[in-house]
């Protein structure tokens, strides 16, 4: 029976190939969308890793996450340096990274931080930031660029940049008295770090020496040499990242910070907040998956259409098989076998296409954005999807098979065409 089904399909190879192609495309699409969806979730959730708590002035968890990790939006309030120091000195705390935001450079956010950022910040699967060129802040006016900033603005080591006060896109006052020099360029991370201009906390203070209440004081301004001799310890920062000695203490420290008496603070677990944020934006992934499912459905409908349209010209074939002793049930099974063979070929071809696409995308993401996609061995989820599509194809194939069954009963041995 299998050889008859196979040779019958070979005889109609052009239409069969089209049906296989339609299924392959839809299978590749849904598998790739599913993979990208899962990878995107993983990459998103791992935008920051190894950080136990993110602390800022009291607002919403998602808002704190957005401005501290994604550099989106602004803090409603700052936290004092005093509080930051006290938290850093807690015995449970292993390290802290201060984050000071508010300035920008040609559309990219400027982040004031310290050496701890380059030592302790982790993303992806425990990956550390690394420099593709230069060094981390050596001088007060040194700047370290994220990979995208350097690439898009075509900056190289030694270039001078002037940062702007505020984060809008036009009409910003610039800190043109204190130009920075590009000292280092980070390797791609596939995270918001790539779109960040990093300066030291002291650098942030330095460019604001001549500013009072958000306005630049009129006059010639303080010279860089004078500024270098000044005490540039910040009075406040925007947020801070906290790493603990043991993760077991995270809820205790979180509670202590949330109940901090000196000022209203908020400590969040970044993994939890990232998950919450993903759940908010994750509607798009569901929509994408739904569209892919519709494409698979279209592939299966095409399969039905190909088999149904072939039935008319195959009535002779059915009559010959019946005359040789084939039962209507055999005709039904033969048609089901054909649709299953087509679907199997489509699924295998779709899987191969999906793997090739993923390898290609993976290579591009890795070289261009440094995104470390997980390994792409076939997983349970892909296998289940393939089985679901195969079952769908078998059910779809039963429709023309049933038609052939009825037809072979009705035709008898008349060789209708």
């Amino acid at each position: 029976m299998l050889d008859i089904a196979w040779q019958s399909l070979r005889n109609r190879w052009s239409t069969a190939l089209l049906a296989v192609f339609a299924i392959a495309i839809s299978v590749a699409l849904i598998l790739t969308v599913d993979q990208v969806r899962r990878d995107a979730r993983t990459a998103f959730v791992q935008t920051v890793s190894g950080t136990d708590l993110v602390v800022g002035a009291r607002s919403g968890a998602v808002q704190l996450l957005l401005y501290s990790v994604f550099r989106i939006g602004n803090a409603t309030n700052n936290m004092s340096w005093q509080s930051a120091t006290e938290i850093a000195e807690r015995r449970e705390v292993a390290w802290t990274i201060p984050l000071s935001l508010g300035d920008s450079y040609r559309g990219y956010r400027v982040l004031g931080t310290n050496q701890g950022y380059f030592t302790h910040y982790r993303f992806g699967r425990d990956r550390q930031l690394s420099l593709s060129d230069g060094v981390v802040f050596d001088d007060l006016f040194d700047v370290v660029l994220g990979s995208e900033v350097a690439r898009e603005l075509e900056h190289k080591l030694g270039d001078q940049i002037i940062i702007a006060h505020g984060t809008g896109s036009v009409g910003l006052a610039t800190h043109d008295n204190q130009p920075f020099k590009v000292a280092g360029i980070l390797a791609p991370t596939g995270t918001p770090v790539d779109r960040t201009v990093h300066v030291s906390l002291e650098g942030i203070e330095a460019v604001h020496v001549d500013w009072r209440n958000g306005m630049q004081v009129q006059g010639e301004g303080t010279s860089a040499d004078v500024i270098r001799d000044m005490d540039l310890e910040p009075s406040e920062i925007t947020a801070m990242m906290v790493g603990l000695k043991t993760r077991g203490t995270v809820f205790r420290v979180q509670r202590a910070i949330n109940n901090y008496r000196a000022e209203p603070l908020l400590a969040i677990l970044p993994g939890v907040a990232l998950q919450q944020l993903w759940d908010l934006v994750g509607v798009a992934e569901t929509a994408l998956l739904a569209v892919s499912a519709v494409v698979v459905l279209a592939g299966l409908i095409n399969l039905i259409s190909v088999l149904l349209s072939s039935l008319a010209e195959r009535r002779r074939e059915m009559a010959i098989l019946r005359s040789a002793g084939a039962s209507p049930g055999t005709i039904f099974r033969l048609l089901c076998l054909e649709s299953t063979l087509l679907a199997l070929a489509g699924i295998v071809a779709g899987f191969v296409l999906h793997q090739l696409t993923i390898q290609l995308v993976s290579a591009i993401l890795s070289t261009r954005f440094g995104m470390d996609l997980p390994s792409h061995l076939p997983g349970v989820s892909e296998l289940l999807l393939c089985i679901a599509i195969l079952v769908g194809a078998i059910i779809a194939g039963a429709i023309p098979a049933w038609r052939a069954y009825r037809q072979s009963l009705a035709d008898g041995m008349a060789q209708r065409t």
Partner: protein
Amino acid sequence: MRQETQETSPTAALINLERVRFSWTAAPSPTIDIKQFRVEAGKRVFLRGPSGSGKTTLLSLVAAVIPPDKGVIEIAGTDLSTLQGAARDRFRADHMGIVFQQFNLLPFLSVAQNVTLPCRFSSARRQRAQADSGSLEAEVCRLLLALKLDAGALLHRPAMSLSVGQQQRVAVARALIGRPPLVIADEPTSALDTDTRDAFLELLFKEIDATGASLLFVSHDKGLAERFDQQLDLPTLNRAETPGADMTLQDR
């Protein structure tokens, strides 16, 4: 030639139809309405009828492809109404070989695969075919050679590459493989020219005689009738209402 009615004992009949009626779903009147029709074992029977007289429908009834609305059809002593579903199809595979007018073969299968097609559905015929020549392929070769076909050259050729005459002979080989007791031929010569037709009939008769099968041969070509043991006129048979006039049978 003499006319006689079929009054022979049911035990001697290979085909026996009693008060059989059949209507296609959309047809206003019955296509088949036969009071009695019998064919004795080992006979070569010519069934004549113009187009639309129900020849193919009668053959479908005899071949157990469609069941009658009323009446009894017995083949080789088996009442077909006692067979249900796949058993009817198995019965057909075991007992009958069928040759159509044209387009007899599955075009995508080889000659050998076409000839052995009934052996896929009938283990009895497969075993007989193997017993006859030692193997299925050897029996296919023997049949093809007996039907004047170059077995060595054609065996694995796709059926669609054969001429119409060659295809008809391959169809006969398929009908004969495994020696079924009944061979049904539905206008098998109408697509052939006169010379090819005569040669085809000669080969068909020779092989039918060799296997001892009965032949029910349907055609509208009156010129062929005299070569058969019995001749039937389907319009007469089909519309007959009174006993004794339900069929016309001519012995040579």
